């Protein structure tokens, strides 16, 4: 065995980034001459059929553990056991919160090397080398691992989902004795969405607001512009956490990934966690008063100026143009 991935699931479906990691592991394992397997944790909703389905993404085997999903430490216990019992050389995670938490815990448990925010993995001489962008993506380091296992945590959407593998995976139930401290966290509620449902993933035009809006009421400017353009409103994590806009509209590392025809970012600095959720947009327009905001480095049109002055006039101009 060579590469073990963790597949997160919720309400009967696997997480997109987890499926990307399983697919990547399948591809890499064949390049370094080994097999890829996945580990899943949860209750009765982890049916045989659901687990077997990971085979079509490249997992030859799926280790199923009964335990609480949504927490990192029980998964660390389970992965440490499966890696030790079966001699996996690498653990690979898709982007997202749990990958970071589990990968980090596993690093400590197994005294192993870890690389996070990985955007690509290369197979070289039977080993894996991880590529990690650093310093706001101004450089990329190639990272090698000393000893085993090497722990690779992908950036959001770094790994493409590839369906059509070799059919059903073999499902192996594993008994895990959880650590005392793993049992000291309990999920009370999982996956609360906030007050409204907004489908930003299907919108062709998105007007996204960030901290530069100054206050929650600033979103009114984004809503008016979005309406005039026929699009929807999105938000950064910082403003969602601050309670200015609902979670359902959040773009980025722990939010949604979008690729609309137009992404207009208002008052968004362009931190990497946001960038990963929107960088595939066809046209990126950014308005920010800070000329050094990182978002200008990857936008197609950047406006250095005060959004409070620009957005209302832009809304009027768009309305006039469309009405013409």
């Amino acid at each position: 065995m060579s590469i073990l991935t963790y597949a997160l699931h919720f309400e009967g479906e696997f997480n997109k980034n987890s499926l990307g990691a399983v697919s990547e592991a399948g591809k890499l394992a064949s390049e370094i001459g080994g097999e890829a397997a996945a580990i899943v944790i949860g209750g009765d909703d982890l049916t045989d059929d659901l687990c077997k389905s990971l085979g079509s993404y490249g997992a030859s085997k799926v280790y199923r553990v009964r335990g609480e999903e949504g927490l990192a430490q029980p998964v660390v216990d389970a992965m440490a056991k499966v890696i030790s019992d079966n001699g996996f050389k690498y653990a690979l995670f898709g982007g997202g919160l749990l990958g970071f938490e589990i990968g980090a815990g596993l690093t400590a448990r197994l005294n192993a090397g870890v690389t996070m925010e990985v955007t690509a993995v290369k197979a070289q001489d039977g080993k894996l080398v991880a590529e990690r962008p650093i310093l706001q993506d101004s450089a990329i380091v190639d990272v090698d691992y000393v000893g085993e296992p090497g722990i690779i945590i992908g950036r959001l959407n770094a790994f493409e989902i590839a369906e059509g593998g070799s059919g059903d995976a073999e499902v192996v139930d594993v008994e895990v004795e959880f650590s005392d401290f793993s049992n000291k966290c309990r999920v009370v509620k999982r996956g609360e969405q906030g007050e409204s449902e907004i489908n930003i993933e299907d919108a062709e035009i998105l007007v996204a607001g960030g901290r530069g809006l100054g206050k929650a009421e600033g979103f009114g400017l984004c809503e008016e512009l979005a309406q005039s353009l026929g699009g929807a409103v999105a938000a950064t994590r910082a403003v969602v956490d601050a309670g200015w806009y609902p979670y359902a509209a959040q773009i980025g590392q722990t939010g949604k990934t979008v690729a609309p025809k137009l992404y207009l970012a208002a008052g968004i600095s362009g931190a990497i966690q946001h960038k990963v959720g929107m960088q595939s947009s066809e046209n990126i327009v950014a308005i920010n008063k800070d000329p050094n905001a990182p978002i200008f480095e990857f936008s197609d049109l950047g406006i250095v100026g005060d959004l409070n002055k620009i957005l209302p006039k832009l809304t009027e101009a768009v309305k006039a143009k469309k009405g013409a």
Partner: protein
Amino acid sequence: MKICVLVKEVPDAAVEKRMDPGSKRLDRSGEKNLNPFDTHAIEAAMQIKEGGKVDVSEIVAVTMGPDSAERALHKAVSLGADRSVHLTDDSLAGSDVCATGYALAKVLESESPDLVLLGQQSDDGECYTIGAVVADHLKMPSLTQVIEMDTQEGKLTCRRQAEYGYDTVEVDLPAVISVGDAINEPRYPSLKAIMGAKKKQLDKRSAGDVGIEDGKVGEQGSRTAVLAINPPPEKQAGEIIEDEDTNETVEKIVAWLDERKLLA
């Protein structure tokens, strides 16, 4: 309850960051500051202390780093910590995530805290990982990216953002909690607190003082090796408009959108 807050000295946000091609480490010679996410962790500790639900005996700021990191500790104390601990030792230079987490866990072990708080990420490394590494070494439960925290005797109720929305999780103490910047608005230190910070107790500890094993830290103890540093793929820079006359700016934006058929 004793709270330890892990803090880190990071390059100032305004300083252009670069790698030292020789050592393949971050060039830390420029202006430095206390990691902004850690100021939220100190504020969270202060709010527990002032909240009155539990009795907080002391708040201790803990860092690992070279001599200059002392300034980050002074700032942490000016924001409310009662004293600070500085793990500094030449053998620690070049430690990766695995080695750094181990070293910090050894210092914390010597302090026996009931709660460890830290910012969910550092401005320089952007790793999100140290809390979980430290927790596994300390055999404590851990939660990251926490944005609300209610403290009762012996346990915490935390709200954090996860893949499918917000999770609410109960955690028994002692525990390690990484906080996000939405958890609070850090206070500004008073002039008196800034002036008094240098007079508060600052304990310097070496690797040997806290029982760090030889060979488990620094480059020797690191489990990753940087093979190469490469420039990113070239990307054509976009057009930039400085807004001097807003009517003109808006006209240009509309023309740009129209040209790309985005106003249909």
